[in-house]
């Protein structure tokens, strides 16, 4: 790797998550390794008559107590999740004082710190509640906070407001690939010299009766009532995903910048690949051709052969079409090496975090690299015989010499992202 400004090596120096598997990287990582599905009957969905009532919620939190008075009123739930994860990531990166919560002003030039987040929906709860109020009470009672709460770029804006980061600040939407796309584009901001540090990640808080009903109408959600097997990626009986919510935030930084300030590199962002299916509004092509392109581009970007990859954190949503297409794509990319790639989908535990999935799963892929352990696919009992992958089933699998892990994310619209991480 060279230190030329247009091709700088980028490392991860901080990570934070709030997921249905647990809050904080340590707890969430424990949660996915123990393979205990987080799905449960959601009381809101049940009371509002949603056609599917299983969902994966994050652990409860008090937004006003943690994020300041007015947070619950002025900020949507998705922004709460993003801030909670961002504070953890910034603290690990040494960019936030653990005691006072204040940004560490001397650690970096905050004018050179960017924010790039992904979200599929943005302020879903705010949309739903404000629209209900609009019908009930009329236009004159519309809240002036509706737009600033709901806009999907608000989470990225609030991270800047709370940290003082004045670099490029944006939000990308590639639906269920948004968290991964944000990591890709954030990495590129560093490579192109537009920032030294970029706070990247994905966030989603879309478990509303409206969204769940709509996903159910599409046939995308599992109708299985058993919370332990409703989300069962790659299982022969899989019948859809379970809605999840959460946020994953990573602090990306040029390797030279991290080294200069003494920050510990947790992993390297070795390669990023993006593609489109050019096929259908929601369904992947059966041969997973778009996914193949994304994975090959990530490998090429890193200058790495497929044989170097020992682990894939699959998109693995538990829908019949996704898992079959992704398995086929992995077969094309890895060919003769397919048997040497341990594949898992952590969505068996977390459900599908939509726009947050790519970032949360990037964190899990990095944890697998750091710990040399690959979590099992929860919910998976009988592997689909048409899926010839080396799936991690039952117990977490220790691995030796794991150097590269790939994380896949695919969004509606046929938007694909693949990220390759390497040991630091």
């Amino acid at each position: 790797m060279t230190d030329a400004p247009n091709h700088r090596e980028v490392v991860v120096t901080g990570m934070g998550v709030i997921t249905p598997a647990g809050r904080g990287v340590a707890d969430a990582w424990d949660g996915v390794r123990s393979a205990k599905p987080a799905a449960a009957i959601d009381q809101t969905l049940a009371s509002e008559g949603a056609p599917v009532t299983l969902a994966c919620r994050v652990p409860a939190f008090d937004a006003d107590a943690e994020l300041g008075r007015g947070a619950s009123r002025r900020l949507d739930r998705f922004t709460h999740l993003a801030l909670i994860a961002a504070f953890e990531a910034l603290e690990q990166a040494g960019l936030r004082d653990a005691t006072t919560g204040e940004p560490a002003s001397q650690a970096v030039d905050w004018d050179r710190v960017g924010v790039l987040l992904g979200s599929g929906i943005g302020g879903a709860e705010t949309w739903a509640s404000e629209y209900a109020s609009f019908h009930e009470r009329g236009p004159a009672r519309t809240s002036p906070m509706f737009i600033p709460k709901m806009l999907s770029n608000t989470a990225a804006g609030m991270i800047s407001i709370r940290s003082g980061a004045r670099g490029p600040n944006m939000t990308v939407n590639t639906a269920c690939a948004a968290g991964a796309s944000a990591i890709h584009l954030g990495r590129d901001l560093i490579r192109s010299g537009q920032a030294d540090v970029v706070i990247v990640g994905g966030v989603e808080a879309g478990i509303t009766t409206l969204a769940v009903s709509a996903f159910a109408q599409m046939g995308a959600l599992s109708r299985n009532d058993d919370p332990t097997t409703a989300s069962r990626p790659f299982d022969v009986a899989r019948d859809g995903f379970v809605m999840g919510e959460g946020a994953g935030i990573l602090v990306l930084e040029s390797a030279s910048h991290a080294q200069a300030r003494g920050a510990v590199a947790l992993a390297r962002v070795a390669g990023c690949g993006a593609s489109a299916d050019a096929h259908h509004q929601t369904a992947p092509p059966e041969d997973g051709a778009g996914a193949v392109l994304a994975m090959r581009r990530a490998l090429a970007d890193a200058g790495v052969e497929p044989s170097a990859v020992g682990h894939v954190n699959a998109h693995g949503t538990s829908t019949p079409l996704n898992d079959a297409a992704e398995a086929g794509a992995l077969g094309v990319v890895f060919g003769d090496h397919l048997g040497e790639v341990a594949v898992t989908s952590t969505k068996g535990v977390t459900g599908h975090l939509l726009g947050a999935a790519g970032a949360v799963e990037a964190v899990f892929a990095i944890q697998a690299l750091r710990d040399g352990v690959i979590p099992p696919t929860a919910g998976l009992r009988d592997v689909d015989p048409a899926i010839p992958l080396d799936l991690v089933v039952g117990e977490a699998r220790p691995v030796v010499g794991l150097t590269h892990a790939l994380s896949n994310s695919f969004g509606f619209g046929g938007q694909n992202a693949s990220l390759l991480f390497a040991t630091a």
Partner: protein
Amino acid sequence: MAQDHTTTLFAILTDTFAVPVDELTPSATFESLGLDSLDLVEITLILDEQLGVKLEDADLEDIVTLADAIAAIDAKQVLA
């Protein structure tokens, strides 16, 4: 009348805006309570709903303290 409006405003600030009771004094500014112009608009919507008092943009320009807001509400109700 003024006492009623004080009670109404303070109740809105505690119930909807989670302002601690001990911070509610007539001389307190909205800014010191962490409330901005968007919050002030939200407050006017609630006042309209609860009292039928419509504070206009021109009224809001002069409101800095809670006492200012109470005086503005008083003036509106006298006129009505």
